């Protein structure tokens, strides 16, 4: 399951900290803060710095040559092709699943929720194997599809399928709690005023959930671009054909071209950093919106 990243309630922290009984002695405070900084520095910051240091070890010209090498360019293109498809498909699924689960009570609802979580728990390698058993040469559907002229295994289609499996929960998991928290009052009101399904979705639901949706998209995209284990199994890792960026990193590393591997890794690290920056930005916007709504409610009540 993804770490819970819903915008936290703010304001609570500062007045809680001011309560005397909850205060730790100053030296304990600073000791613990220092320990945190050390842990994060060692575990997270150092590796990120090292990626860029290794990528630029032989200068910018080499870095650029490594990035613009034709097969690397192809892998970047492939990743940029696969990820948007996966994101769009999982957004459609996420919206449908969140609507079903947050708006209706039906038998099997909890089983449905558990099933959405399943890809978090299953190893990516097992996912790859499962799709090979379906679409491989000795697979259940492989020979039949081949007779129709469709080849899935060792193909971009297989990469798209497994990546969709692996990133399936992200959008739905982000949307369900948001939609449950908002409730269905506004939508029910819209129905009573004669709105149809699409009008409700575009004018009420979507504006309400837009930040949650955006955050789900960001996460889903980051994971889609970084998917390695399942793609490694089903893609066949054919250079210049089915090599996504993470697979390219592995290939370059194994051919002892470490600077090139780190050059590709630096791009994916930028993606991760960008994802975090976007996340902070989305959280800030959500907070502002909540505050504005509260203020509007206050002035509305005063009149």
């Amino acid at each position, binding site marked *: 399951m993804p*770490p819970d990243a819903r915008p936290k309630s703010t304001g*609570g*922290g500062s007045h809680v900290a001011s*309560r005397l*009984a*909850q205060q730790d*002695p100053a030296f304990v405070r600073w000791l613990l*803060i220092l*320990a945190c*900084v050390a842990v*994060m520095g060692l575990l*997270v*910051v150092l*590796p990120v710095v090292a*990626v860029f240091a*290794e990528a630029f070890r032989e200068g910018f010209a080499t870095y650029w040559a490594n990035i613009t090498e034709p097969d690397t360019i192809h892998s970047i293109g492939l990743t940029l092709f696969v990820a948007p498809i996966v994101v769009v498909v999982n957004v459609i699924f996420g919206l*449908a*699943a969140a609507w*079903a689960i947050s*708006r*209706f009570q*039906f038998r099997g609802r909890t089983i*449905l929720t*558990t*099933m959405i*979580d*399943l*890809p*978090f*728990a*299953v*190893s990516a*390698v097992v996912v790859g*194997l*499962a799709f*090979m*058993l*379906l679409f*491989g040469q*000795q*697979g259940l559907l492989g020979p039949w599809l081949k007779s129709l002229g469709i080849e899935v295994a060792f193909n971009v289609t297989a990469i798209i*399928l497994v990546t969709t*499996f692996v990133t*399936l929960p992200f959008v739905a998991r982000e949307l369900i709690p948001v939609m449950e928290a908002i409730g*269905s009052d506004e939508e*029910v009101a819209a129905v009573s005023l004669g709105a*149809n*399904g699409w009008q409700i979705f575009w004018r009420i639901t979507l504006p309400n959930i837009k930040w949650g949706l955006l955050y789900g998209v960001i996460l889903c995209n980051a994971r889609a671009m*970084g998917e390695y284990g399942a793609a490694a199994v089903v893609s066949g890792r054919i250079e210049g054909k089915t090599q996504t960026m*993470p*697979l390219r*990193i592995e290939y370059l590393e194994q051919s002892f071209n*470490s600077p090139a591997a780190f050059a590709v*890794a630096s791009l994916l*690290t930028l993606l*991760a*950093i960008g994802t*975090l920056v976007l*996340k*902070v930005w989305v959280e800030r916007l959500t907070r502002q919106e909540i505050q504005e709504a509260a203020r509007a409610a206050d002035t509305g009540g005063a009149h």
Partner: protein
Amino acid sequence: MASLANRRVLPGFRMSVSFTLMYLAVLIVVPLFAVLLRASSMTTADFVRAVWTPQARAAYALTFGASLIAAVIDVGLGLLLAWVLVRYDFPGKRILDSLIDLPFALPTAVAGLVYSSLYAPKGWMGQFLVPLGIHAAYSRLAVVVVLVFIGLPFVVRALEPVLESLDPELEEAAACLGASRWTTVWCVVIPHLYPAILTGFALTLARGIGEYGSVVFVSGNKPFQTEIAPYLIVQKLEAFQYKEATAIATVLLAASFALLIVINFLERQRARHAT
């Protein structure tokens, strides 16, 4: 919120439920069913022979052992980080907070690549650690270290909301009754966090058992020593030993299902306590 009455009022019940079911069936149920189907086509003796080789046993031991150790370490680190981020104010807190999610956003192949180079004998960390006899690359320790990194966000994010919503009166009462700060934290606060700690622990464990991308880069993949179970599956697949691969995958799948059920149970317990 979600009520039976909604079904008569709000549109899209049939459409959304049937689309969700179809999508899950095609993408999740059918592929996983294919694994079980292939596994069930083996005789019991064949299955046991495939999943219980000495090499496979060593791989399970490493996969489960390293994930367990990493999850325990992450509980410790998670407690520390969540405590500091919720309770204290200090410059740079926002940055520290957003960095927690980096292991989640960073592709695992990148994590594996950079960790193996950091702790290799000539790496930034390795040049100091290797002379001390600490080999944190291409070893079992390397597997634990990279799993600690991968699982870091889970415990922190599970703990933060619980710690934030903890009633301050609990600690005031303890202090009024003469408990020292240490006793208060240890005997009053931490027990309230047990369910969240357990959830975070189970999530980290599940992630660690399934993890492949980062581990293959750092472990060296030596049979009987640093080979994890998912790597064994890939090996069997590359040798076109689909049966053996499927058998080992079934074992991992069973572990995933069991953990998922535990996690769901824990979350439902927590939801019940909250209301």
